[in-house]
Structures are given as structure tokens and as C-alpha cells.
């Protein structure tokens, strides 16, 4: 597009948009959002900060949705000029263009979507197309989807298309084709009986198949790989019991050493809750469940057809959230989690005048018990291993015990105390080969004080102690808020080692430990649906996990700006 052409076309583009908006007030609605993250990188070799040649990285997204009656159309412009360091998780994004667009309409009980769409079957064990924009994960489908409700309580869905792989002045699609159907029956809606007025049973089943041509000169690869899943969910006023089982036929790929073994996964969960008490218990077993629409996808983040969520708590405090988070191991794991929330009422012995809340959580993950198959013959060798489903192996990948107490002590003061004990197999989870598992303890104190109705200060002191990996961390944070518009915050993270003056790593004595401060300051302004935030300082490397995989954001030093708005 030449410059003069662009200048000529822009007023047309603008007036078309505004025209649509004016028309929208009469008939339809036009709305959207915008968000951008910009960072200016400084040199800081002490912490190994990244310094991209462009010095300035910027990600930006603008969504627009137009609806009129039963018709809807939408799109998203995306820009990565260039993308922020460490973004996205998988295949690189570059340039500016359209990343997503669709049209959708409803004809009584039938809904048709053409173009891009996000969808999920059950808990996603065999199919989930979703976006986690800030993690850089987007496996949106491009094709079509039908949703049909033939009778009350009966829901049918079918999808067909290719997934988003990367971005180069527009979305780049993967080579594999994904096709799927899902059916669900909700008995409470279907039958109008005394039983279903208090309880409900939902049963569902789905089938997904991917197609990718076999061009391998040495192996005969399955070109169509099918997966099926069944699920049931019982609910009553107090109970919610869920189970889903998935099976995948053999799918030799780059993530499973090209074995011809079938895959399977089982997820079960039960929760019980009444006012003031909630409890949940869940477990899952996963065996050979990497399911990507390109068997030679370059990274584990690309082209995932399914979603295998970890059964661990997603922490909100900075140190536990971004130093040692867990990610599901799709090739094999057995995991369980239990959790209790309880509130001591106002006026009770432990509740005091304003009540006290406690949360206790425990989770653990082990390798799956497997036996490597020998070289008896080629067929056996190609199966790779045999496994005992739902039987944990010897190696423990992860364990997290944490307890949190929250109490409002007066009208103007409230506190939260947290303790965490963690075991983390850094070799498996972060791929740091040969590094010993990390054993860590964390203590966190958080306080909130209201000076007035609208002005307050919140502070956090966090400490992590470990003799492994990078040693100890201490974090202090203070955040002043002036509702409804402003906030100012300052944080320092201090990485230090106390044991001896040498640092034990990989079982060897290494050089004297280095001690680093990571100070950072932030200021923010919020006005209705718009938020501006600016940070300046050092940002340590952090891990962000989604589904089965963790993305590492490199250490950096500099100025960053985020703007989000909804209109």
C-alpha cells in the first residue's frame, strides 16, 4: 500500500467506522477494547537483563465487535513492532495485522460461527481453543462452528478448522486440520421432576480428530489421530462431583519420542460447601496426552488441541506465583489436590468481633509409573513404554502445602498471614537439566490500612528460604491507593544467600554468591474502563505457566507502560 493511497483511504475508513457507530445507536451496537504493553529496555548486565537491538518493544491489541439482533461480527488488530522480550510463549509474533475475525448469527436454536472462534469441550482434556493474551498463548480455530439445541437440555456442537500457529502481519495457521463434535444432556433441564429441582446430572461426550499428511520417509505415521472423552457431573445444593475420561489413539510426535502408544487421562473432582465452609478434593492421571495439530510443532506451546490444567493452587503473591509454579506434564503424571476454606463467624471464640478466615491447601504431583520396553522387536520398541494408570512412580515432581489466615482486626486494619512449603522438581518442570529439586519455605505478611474512606496503604513482606537454585529471596511492597483514580507502588526484591560464603549448586561448590536488589516503582491512573500504568526499575526473570507449559520472562531493566481501555 503506497503512502498516498493510505492517506486517501483513511478518511473513508474513519467515516465508515463513525457512520457505523451512528447507525449503531439506532439499530446495532459497536464496542470494543484496546490494550498495549510497551517497554523501553536499559542495559543491566549484572542481572543479565535482555537488551534487544530495537530497545523498545510494543505489543498492542484492538478488538471491535458489532452486534445487531441475532447477527454479530468482530475482529482484532494486533501489533508486535517488535514483540516484548520473551513474548509470546511459542512461535514468534511480528508485524501488524488482523489476528482474529469472525461472523456469527443465530437462527432460533442454531448458532453459526464462520472464521475464528474459541471453544471448549468438557474440561478441555481433548479440545480447548482459548487465548491467554498476557501469557502469549492463542490457539484460536479458523473455520466454522455450529451450536444446536434440538430439545431443552440437549446441547450439540461441532467444530472444524485450523489453529493459529504464529503471527506475521496477520495470523499464521498451522498445517493440521482439527474436527470435533460434542454432545451434552442436562437432566434438570430435560426432565422437570422433583429430583431434578434439587439436583442435576449432566452427561456429555465428545470426539475430536486431527488430520496431518505423513511425509516421513522412515515411519508410517497415522494421518488421522482420533480422541474421545466422556464426562458426568452430579450437582446438589451442597455437592458437586465431576469426572471426565479421555482416550487418544497412537500419535507419534516430537514431544513423546515418536512412540506409537495410545494416550489416556482421567480427571475427578468433588466439592462440598455450605455457607462458611467449602472443601474440595481432586485427582488426575495423565499418560501420553500431548495433542498438537502439528506432530512436529516447534515448541510445546504451539498448536495444542487440548488443555491439561495442573491440579495445584495458582498463587497470587509474587514470589510463589512466579518463581516456582507448577505445570502439568502431559507425557505422564499422577496428581492430587485437597483444599478447605472456613470462616469463623463474628462473635465466635476464634472469629472475634469481625470473623476470621482460613484456607488450607495441599497438592502433590508424581511421575506416572512406567516401564521402558526393550528392543525385543521393532513393534514393541515403537510402543516405547508400558504404564500403570493412576499409579504414581518414584519421582515426585511437585508438592505444595500452604495455609492462609485472614482477619480484619479493626475498622481500619486487616491482615493476612501465609505459610508455604514447597518441593519443586526444577529439572522436569523448567527443563533445567541435572539441577536438584528445590525445597523452599515461604512466609508472607500482608496488611491493609485505610487512612480515610478512599485512601489506603497495602503492604506485603514475603520471604523465601531455600538452599537450592538461587537461594533466598525477600520482597517488600507498599502500595498507596487514592480511590477511584490513582495508585503509587514501590517494591524491592532482594536475592541473597546466607549459608557459608559459597553457593552450592548442582552438587558442586561454586563462586561466592551474588546479591541483587530488584527495585521497581509503579504509578497508575484509572478512569472508568481505562487504566494506565507505568513502571520503572529492575524486573527479575519470572515464570508464567499455562496448561502444561511455563513461559520464562527474562530479567529486564527499564521503563514500561500499559494501557487498557474498554468501550
Amino acid at each position: 500500500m503506497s503512502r498516498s493511497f493510505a492517506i486517501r483511504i483513511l478518511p473513508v475508513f474513519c467515516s465508515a467506522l463513525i457512520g457505523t457507530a451512528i447507525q449503531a445507536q439506532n439499530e446495532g451496537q459497536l464496542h470494543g477494547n484496546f490494550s498495549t504493553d510497551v517497554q523501553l529496555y536499559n542495559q543491566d548486565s549484572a542481572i543479565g537483563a535482555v537488551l534487544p537491538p530495537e530497545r523498545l518493544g510494543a505489543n498492542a491489541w484492538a478488538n471491535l465487535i458489532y452486534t445487531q439482533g441475532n447477527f454479530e461480527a468482530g475482529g482484532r488488530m494486533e501489533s508486535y513492532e517488535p514483540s516484548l522480550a520473551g513474548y509470546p510463549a511459542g512461535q514468534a509474533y511480528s508485524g501488524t495485522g488482523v489476528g482474529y475475525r469472525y461472523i456469527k448469527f443465530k437462527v432460533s436454536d442454531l448458532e453459526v460461527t464462520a472464521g475464528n472462534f474459541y471453544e471448549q469441550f468438557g474440561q478441555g482434556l481433548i479440545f480447548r481453543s482459548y487465548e491467554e493474551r498476557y501469557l502469549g498463548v492463542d490457539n484460536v480455530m479458523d473455520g466454522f462452528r455450529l451450536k444446536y439445541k434440538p430439545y431443552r437440555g440437549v446441547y450439540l456442537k461441532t467444530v472444524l478448522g485450523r489453529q493459529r500457529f504464529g503471527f506475521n502481519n496477520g495470523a499464521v495457521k498451522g498445517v493440521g486440520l482439527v474436527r470435533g463434535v460434542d454432545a451434552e444432556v442436562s437432566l434438570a433441564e430435560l426432565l422437570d421432576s422433583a429430583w431434578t429441582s434439587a439436583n442435576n446430572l449432566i452427561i456429555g461426550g465428545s470426539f475430536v480428530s486431527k488430520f496431518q499428511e505423513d511425509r516421513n520417509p522412515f515411519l508410517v505415521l497415522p494421518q488421522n489421530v482420533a480422541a474421545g472423552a466422556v464426562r458426568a457431573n452430579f450437582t446438589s445444593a451442597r455437592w458437586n462431583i465431576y469426572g471426565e475420561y479421555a482416550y487418544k489413539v497412537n500419535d507419534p510426535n516430537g514431544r513423546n519420542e515418536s512412540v506409537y502408544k495410545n494416550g489416556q487421562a482421567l480427571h475427578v473432582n468433588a466439592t462440598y460447601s455450605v455457607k462458611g465452609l467449602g472443601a474440595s478434593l481432586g485427582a488426575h492421571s495423565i499418560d501420553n496426552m500431548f495433542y498438537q495439530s502439528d506432530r512436529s510443532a516447534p515448541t510445546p506451546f504451539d498448536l495444542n488441541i487440548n488443555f491439561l490444567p495442573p491440579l495445584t493452587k495458582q498463587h497470587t503473591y509474587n514470589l510463589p506465583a512466579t518463581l516456582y509454579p507448577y505445570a502439568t506434564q502431559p507425557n505422564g503424571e499422577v496428581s492430587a489436590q485437597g483444599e478447605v476454606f472456613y470462616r469463623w463467624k463474628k462473635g465466635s471464640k476464634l472469629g472475634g468481633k469481625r470473623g476470621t478466615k482460613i484456607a488450607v491447601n495441599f497438592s502433590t504431583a508424581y511421575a506416572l509409573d512406567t516401564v521402558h520396553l526393550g528392543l525385543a522387536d521393532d513393534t514393541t520398541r515403537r510402543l516405547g513404554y508400558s504404564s500403570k494408570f493412576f499409579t504414581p512412580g518414584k519421582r515426585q515432581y511437585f508438592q505444595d502445602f500452604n495455609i492462609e489466615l485472614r482477619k480484619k482486626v479493626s475498622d481500619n486494619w486487616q491482615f493476612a498471614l501465609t505459610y508455604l512449603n514447597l518441593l519443586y522438581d526444577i529439572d522436569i518442570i523448567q527443563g533445567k537439566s541435572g539441577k536438584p529439586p528445590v525445597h523452599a519455605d515461604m512466609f508472607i505478611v500482608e496488611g491493609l490500612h485505610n487512612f480515610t474512606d478512599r485512601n489506603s496503604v497495602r503492604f506485603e513482606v514475603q520471604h523465601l528460604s531455600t538452599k537450592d537454585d538461587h537461594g533466598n529471596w525477600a520482597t517488600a511492597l507498599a502500595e498507596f491507593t487514592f480511590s477511584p483514580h490513582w495508585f503509587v507502588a514501590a517494591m524491592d526484591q532482594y536475592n541473597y544467600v546466607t549459608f557459608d560464603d559459597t553457593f552450592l549448586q548442582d552438587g558442586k561448590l561454586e563462586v561466592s554468591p551474588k546479591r541483587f536488589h530488584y527495585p521497581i516503582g509503579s504509578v497508575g491512573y484509572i478512569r472508568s474502563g481505562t487504566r494506565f500504568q507505568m513502571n520503572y526499575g529492575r524486573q527479575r526473570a519470572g515464570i508464567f505457566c499455562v496448561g502444561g507449559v511455563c513461559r520464562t520472562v527474562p530479567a529486564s531493566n527499564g521503563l514500561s507502560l500499559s494501557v487498557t481501555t474498554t468501550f
Partner: protein
Amino acid sequence: MKITLSLLSFLCFGLLASSQNGAHLPSVMVQTMEGRKVDTKTISNDGKPIIINFWATWCAPCKRELATIAESYDTWQEETGVKLIAVSIDDARSMARVAPYVNGQGWDYEVLLDPNGDLKRAMNVNNVPHTFLLNGKGEIVYQHNNYEPGDEKELYAKVKALSGK
């Protein structure tokens, strides 16, 4: 060129910036904590205001906001008849934690689950917490992103203005 184009497009967007005000809730399927499907278009409160609050169990400011409102929610309801619908965007990882968490806190909100972000996308929410206020006709009249202690007072002032109190 690209920058000019992006800037001008953004300006166009800016001109339209208030267009979500007055809009109705989109028609999106979400579910209750009991697994029943709900079309968001059918949400109503007998001509009284509705607060739609997007949150997640992994979002600390969201939980602070809902816990703070919970302390005076019965007064809010008595005075104005307002209803708060807490839309959780927890995905398959933490969706099962929502009901025990909400009950463990003793909250009385209506809770809806949006595990694949369909409603979040349809309402153009970038991040949580994000709050919308709907008048008795179901039109969006106010929205607020983020939470700071005290924001709930601003919100309640808007609710009271809507119900003529």
C-alpha cells in the same frame, strides 16, 4: 506508515469511546455453579440495578473487592434492591474451587462461571477486576476497571443515584 495507520485507527476508536454505555448485555451462554446453562441476555432484576463483576480465584484485588462489598451487601440490597452477579473467569484449572471458595467466604452473590472467557470477550474485558453497572432497563451505565479500597463507595453512590435514593 504503519504507525500513522495505527494512530488514526486508534483515533477513530477514540471517537466511539462511549459506545458501550447504553448497551445491553450480550447473549452468551455461561453456567451457574450447579452446572445449569444461562443465557446472559435473560439476566434481569425486576427493574432494579444489577452489578456485573468479573473476577477470578487467582486475582487478589478481585477478592478484596468482593469481600469488602460482602460486608455491606445486605444493606445495599435492602436500600436499593441491587443484585451483584460475580462472573468468575476461572478456567478448567480452578473452576472447581469457585463454589467452595465463595461459600467459605460466606458470600451471598449470584455466581456465574465463564471458563473459556466467552462473556469476558463479548463484553471487551481486558483484565479483572472489571465492574459494570446496569440500570433497571438492563443498560450499561457505568463501568470501572481495577479495584482500590474505596471504589465500592463510588459504585454504591452510582447504584443509589439509579434507584433514586
